[in-house]
């Protein structure tokens, strides 16, 4: 059994062994023995320093021809040749050679100035040529010359990606230091430098990069690293799309109906908007899949500030707009208040509730926030404007529709009005003709009654309502005319409480029912016919009943339009407050029940 401590010791020992081994092979540029940790560091450096937007390192894509210019000595040439020899092992994928002729990697040792000029081609990741400038005093030893040239060579072979400034974390690494003086050469980090160069120049660099990420992190991390910008854009787009869709659905579903200054309704609508804002923020955060406390703090600030904002807007507008401001001035108030409130409240979203931070950041903040605040305020004003316009158009349409309905109702009522049966006139005139020679007085009475009745029935002024008294008078006249025809076969009685006589009644509403009672009831019996018109109060309603002792009402389908018209007329005039009924037993009657206005009841 090996104890844990022992295992640990063994591990440490191994590390130490590898470490020593690395030191031992320090002279070699071969990097096969690079440890796992160093490999990871190297990969992180590659990712951090050399991979830009294109995800391709900026290296020589063609053969590398090296030339020495200027006051170069034989020692320098020897150093370069040695370095190229080493490099050939590290970068087997390029032909690297020393030349006096045409070259793309030039060391100019003229001492005029220091530095490196690099020309790249249009792709942005391929070095066209590089010229290095440096100066050596004549007494500089070979070791130092080789170190400087090594530095320049390595730095020439790969350029940092623009804007990338990560460090390798390995002190003395050639890719970390600002100048050749700081690098350690030769040192244990040379395998590290070599590993980086070898990897960057490998034909299957992309493949290696991917494998490394997938192996050590995950495929997802690889994708995130590779397509960070695309993901950023995609999630931004997704956020915008989701927010827009949600907002549209909410608007269509009527979530933003006028709140009528109802605080709860208004806040509910505000919460919908805040929820959309939170969703949008989440979408932005998802792109790097790393929500930390700072993000959550921002979110919290966002929610609190938004709540504060909508309530400030609510109360400010309530005070300013409840008086009934409309049109452009209303929109102006909406816009100004939104702008003002957002300008005030937007600070804590970013900086929390620290007054110091807010004051410190004011100039900075307005530059970045003003377009946002302006567009939100304008958007809100526009939405309210369109909503108001839409509402006023709807209102107008409603009014028009109501007017049309009223006209149609009037036309329907007109068509449902009772018309006097011409037979009645023929029969009455026949009676007058027969009375004329025998009973002048009765004839006169009859002719006048007929005149009265038609005056009422023709209704030249198209009056819709008459008092109950007028209607009952017309009915009495009608019955008297009919009594001349029917003689003893027709007896009638009209009962009405005097308090009801002033109640308005639709013109000729009752008379057709009386006419029906004669036509279908009494005219079918041979003697002692009896009709009674009775007006009584039924609970809160006016009960009108016409009794007769004639033929019973039929069962089943009804022909003709008389009774049907009467029902439709009261339905149009009174809605469901009026009703109609008939009974055959114990007494035969047909009845109407009409609503009475309260003040009319009180008059009794």
């Amino acid at each position, binding site marked *: 059994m090996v104890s844990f401590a022992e295992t640990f010791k063994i591990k440490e020992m191994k590390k130490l062994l590898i470490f020593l081994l690395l030191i031992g092979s320090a002279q070699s540029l071969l990097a096969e023995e690079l440890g796992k940790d160093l490999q990871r560091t190297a990969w992180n450096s590659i990712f951090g320093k050399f991979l830009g937007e294109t995800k391709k390192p900026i290296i020589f894509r063609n053969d590398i021809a090296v030339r020495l210019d200027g006051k170069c000595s034989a020692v320098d040439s020897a150093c370069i040749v040695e370095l190229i020899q080493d490099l050939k092992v590290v970068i087997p994928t390029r032909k690297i050679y020393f030349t006096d002729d045409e070259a793309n990697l030039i060391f100019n040792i003229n001492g005029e100035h220091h530095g490196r000029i690099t020309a790249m081609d249009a792709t942005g990741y391929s070095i066209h040529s590089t010229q290095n400038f440096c100066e050596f005093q004549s007494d500089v030893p070979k070791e130092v010359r080789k170190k400087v040239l090594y530095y320049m060579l390595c730095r020439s072979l790969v350029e940092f990606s623009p804007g990338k400034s990560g460090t390798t974390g390995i002190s003395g690494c050639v890719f970390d230091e600002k100048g050749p003086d700081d690098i350690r050469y030769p040192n244990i980090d040379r395998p590290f430098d070599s590993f980086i160069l070898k990897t960057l120049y490998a034909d299957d660099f992309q493949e290696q990069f991917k494998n490394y990420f997938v192996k050590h992190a995950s495929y997802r991390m690889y994708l995130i690293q590779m397509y960070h910008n695309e993901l950023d854009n995609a999630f931004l787009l997704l956020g915008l799309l989701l927010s827009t869709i949600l907002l549209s659905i909410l608007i269509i579903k009527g979530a933003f109906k006028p709140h009528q200054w109802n605080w709860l309704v208004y806040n509910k609508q505000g919460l919908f908007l805040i929820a959309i804002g939170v969703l949008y923020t989440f979408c932005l955060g998802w792109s790097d899949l790393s929500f930390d406390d700072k993000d959550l703090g921002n979110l919290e600030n966002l929610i609190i500030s938004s709540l504060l904002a909508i309530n400030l807007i609510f109360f400010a507008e309530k005070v300013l707009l409840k008086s009934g401001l409309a049109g452009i001035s209303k929109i102006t108030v909406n816009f100004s208040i939104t702008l003002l409130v957002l300008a005030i409240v937007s600070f804590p979203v970013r900086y929390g509730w620290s007054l110091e931070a807010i004051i410190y950041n004011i100039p900075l903040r307005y530059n970045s926030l003003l377009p946002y605040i302006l567009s939100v305020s304008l958007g809100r004003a526009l939405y309210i404007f369109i909503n108001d316009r839409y509402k006023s158009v709807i209102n107008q349409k409603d009014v028009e529709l109501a007017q049309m309905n009223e006209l149609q109702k009037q036309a329907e009522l007109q068509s449902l009005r009772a018309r006097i049966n011409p037979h009645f006139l023929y029969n009455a005139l*026949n009676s007058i003709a027969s009375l004329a*020679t025998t009973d002048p007085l009765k004839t006169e009475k009859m002719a006048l009654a007929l005149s009265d009745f038609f005056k009422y029935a023709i209704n030249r002024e198209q009056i819709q309502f008459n008092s109950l008294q007028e209607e009952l008078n017309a009915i009495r006249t009608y019955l008297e005319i009919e009594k001349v025809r029917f003689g003893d076969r027709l007896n009638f009685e009209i009962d009405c409480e005097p308090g009801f006589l002033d109640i308005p009644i639709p013109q000729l509403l009752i008379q057709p029912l009386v006419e029906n009672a004669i036509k279908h009831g009494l005219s079918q019996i041979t003697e002692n016919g009896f009709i009674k018109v009775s007006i009584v109060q039924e609970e809160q309603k006016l009960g009108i009943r016409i009794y007769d002792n004639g033929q019973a009402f039929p069962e*089943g389908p009804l022909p003709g339009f008389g009774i049907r018209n009467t029902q439709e007329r009261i339905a149009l005039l009174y809605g469901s407050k009026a009703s109609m009924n008939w009974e055959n037993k114990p007494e035969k009657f047909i009845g109407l029940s009409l609503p009475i206005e309260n003040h009319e009841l009180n008059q009794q």
Partner: protein
Amino acid sequence: MHVYRPMDSLATKYRTLIADDEQPARDRLRKLLAEYPDKIELIGEAQNGMECREMIRHLKPDLLFLDIQMPGLNGFEVLQQSDHSPIVIFCTAFDEFALKAFETNSIDYIVKPVKPERIQKSIEKLDTLKVNSDREGLLRIIDNYLGQTPKKEITSIPVKLGDRMLFVRIEDILYFSAEDKYVTIYSKEGKTYLCNLSLKSLEEKLEDKFLRIHRSLLINVSRIKEIDKYFGSRFIVKIDDSGQTKLTSGRNYYEQIKEIMEI
């Protein structure tokens, strides 16, 4: 019942009966006929149909002034129920269909209010034509007339709803469905009403507008949207309502539906 004694039994005089349920109408006719004492011998006045039938049987008049609209029996029914057949002159208020029937069959008629000239013309016609009453012909015309008269159009069905009555418009009814003892009315507003009429009687009264498609279904023809064939000699009838109701016809009604819908 007024019965006059014959004053003179001259063969040329027409023993005349007046039948009208309205006193003034009788008075007027009597007075106008009194202008022709040598032609008209008034033997009685009947106040309603039953009385008229009895008087015809007992008095056997030659001439009858007959009102059509009378309580009890109407003018036509009186004639149908009488063995004796006098010459008939109908007296009636304006009735489009009756007048048309009389005109096309040369039956004499007088329209109220009665004018003296019209009476004179009728009596002159009696003399010149010496019209013998053709009882069979008259009855045939009456039958014909009664058969032809368009029944008054059915417009609504009264439905009791508690203490109120509703008149459901015929055109608003989608269909009737018989369930147990009751018939349910399905209206276009999606409402249903119960009524205690039989489907058979409804079918008879509404035959031109409604179609029986099942033992328990009577549907409004004007509300049919579509008829599709279905297996087993049946049809699926789609109703033109908001609920897109579908009704299945009965096997026994296959031929009827086919014929009426001209499928």
